[in-house]
C-alpha cells in the first residue's frame, strides 16, 4: 500500500494525531458544558466557554456512512479499501473520517459498531476503526 499523506500538526490538532501513542483517542471537550468540539478549537460554540481541551474518549463509535473504493488513483494502491465517517459513541455529531480496517470491505455497513485502532506513521498515530468483535 502507498504511504499515507500526513496532516500538518498545530496546537489544536496535536493531541488528536499523537495521543494514539498511549492508545487514546483525543477529542476536544468543553469543561463547562461537556460538549465535544470537533474539529478542535479552544472555544465552545454551545456555551461560549474558552475552557476547551483534549480529552480521551472511549474510542467506540458507529459507521455513519462509507464507500468502498475501486479506482486505482495512483500505482500500487491496494485492493478495495473503505473510507468512512464514524460518529463517536459519546456524541453523535462528532464525525471522524477514517479507513475501516481488519474487515472485509464488502462487510462494512451503516451503523456498524466500530472501535479505534492506531497506525504509527513517522511521528504520528493515525486513528483507524475496526468492527467491534461480536
Amino acid at each position: 500500500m502507498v504511504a499515507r499523506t500526513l496532516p500538518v500538526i498545530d496546537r489544536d490538532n496535536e493531541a488528536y494525531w499523537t495521543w494514539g501513542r498511549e492508545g487514546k483517542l483525543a477529542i476536544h471537550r468543553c469543561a463547562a458544558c461537556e460538549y465535544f468540539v470537533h474539529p478542535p478549537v479552544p472555544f465552545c460554540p454551545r456555551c461560549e466557554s474558552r475552557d476547551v481541551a483534549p480529552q480521551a474518549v472511549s474510542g467506540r463509535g458507529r459507521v455513519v456512512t462509507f464507500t468502498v473504493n475501486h479506482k486505482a488513483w495512483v500505482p500500487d494502491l491496494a485492493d478495495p479499501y473503505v473510507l468512512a465517517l464514524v460518529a463517536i459513541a459519546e456524541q453523535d455529531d462528532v464525525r471522524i473520517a477514517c479507513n475501516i480496517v481488519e474487515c472485509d470491505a464488502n462487510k462494512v455497513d451503516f451503523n456498524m459498531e466500530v472501535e479505534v485502532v492506531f497506525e504509527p506513521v513517522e511521528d504520528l498515530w493515525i486513528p483507524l476503526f475496526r468492527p467491534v468483535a461480536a
Partner: protein
Amino acid sequence: MTRFAEKNTAITGIGMSDVSRGANKSALALTVDAALEAIADAGLTRADIDGIATWPGERADGSGFSPVGCAALQDALRLEVGWYGGGGEAPGQYGAVFNAIGAIAAGLCKNVLIFRTMYEATARKTAYANSLLREGQRQAGPFSWYAPYYTYAAALQQALFFNLYVHKSGIRPEQVGQIAVNQRRNAALNPKAIYKTPISIDDYLAAPLIATPLRIYDCDVPIDGAAAIIVSRMDVARDLRNPPIRIEAIGSSMRYRNSWTQLAELDTQAQPKVAEMMWSRTDLKSADVDIAQLYDGFSFHTINWLENFGFCERYGAKDFIDGGHRIALDGELPVNTGGGAMSGGRLHAYGAVHEACTQLWRRAGARQVKGDPQVCATSTSGGPLAGAMLLVRD
C-alpha cells in the same frame, strides 16, 4: 420584492470557447474566445466592460482547475474596470455572480464579465496532476482530516454522501442511471458536447465502479474550455440587443456547518437551506419552472437538487426520474438540456448558465425545448457547498 439587489441585474450576453479533451490553444486564449463572444453577444464592446469576476480565481498549480484569473484576462483584453473579484470562498461557482450583483448594487460597475476557465483535460495528460494528495507533503487545513485515508479525489468524499442517500432513499442504480442516459441523449444534439454516443441503462450498469455507489457515468468529464457571461445593471440591460434574462432570485447562504465531515445532513448536502433562501426571494414557485440546469459534478448532485428545489418530495427523486420521461427534452421538466457537465463537459456550472440562456433565448436548435421557456432554475455544487439562481426571461 425590489429590495433584493439581484432583481436589478440581468444576463445580457453569453460566450463559450471550443470545448475539448485537449485544446490546440492556451487556457488564456480559450478565455479570450469566450469573453469576446459574450461581449459581442450582449451588443457591447470591450470599453463597456467595467467589472470582471471569476471563481475561484487563478490557481497556477498546474491542475488546470482555474488557470486564468481576473488579472490575466483584464490585461489580455486591456479592460478598464471599476471592480473585479475572483475568490474560492463563496457559495460555489456562482459566488462570482453573487459578488457581481453586490458590486453593481454598490455602484462600482454596470456590465460585469464573468468567466470560468478549465484546462483539466490537458493537465491530466501528466500523471496524476489532479490528485488531491501530494506525495511526501503534509496536508494543512480542513482537508487534513481526510488526507491520511487515501482520499485522492472529491469523488470519494461525494461517494460517502451519495451512499447514505442511496441507503436512506432506496433509489436503485437503474434509476440513478437515468441522469446519465438523459444527458447523453441531450448531448447528441449539442454540437459542443464531448460525448455524443447514446448510452443505455445496461451500459450504465456495466460501467466500472469508482467508489460505491458511484459509477464512471455518474462523473463529469474534465475538459479544456471557457465560458463567459455578461451581467448588466437592469436599466443598461433593457437597452441591449438580447431580451434581458433577469436574475430573479439567488440562494447564497451558509446557515449550516460547511464541512466535508461535520455537515449535519450528508444525504441532502448543503442544498436545502440554499434553495429555501432562493425561494424566499421570489413569488415564483417550483411549479413555475420551465427548465432546470442542475449541477452535475456527479449525478447525485442533480438528483439532490431535484428534491431540494422542490420539484419532487424528499427521497421522491427515484420515482420522478424513473424511466427518464419527466426530465427529457420533451418532458415536464427538461433537465441539463445540453448534456450537462457529464456529457457536455465540465465547465463547472458556467456551462449550465450558458445552456440556460441558450434555451431561454430559444437558440438551442435541435435540442430546443418545446414552447416558450421563460423560467430556469440553476444550481451549483455539492457537499458542503451550494449556490442557486432562478433566471427569468420576460
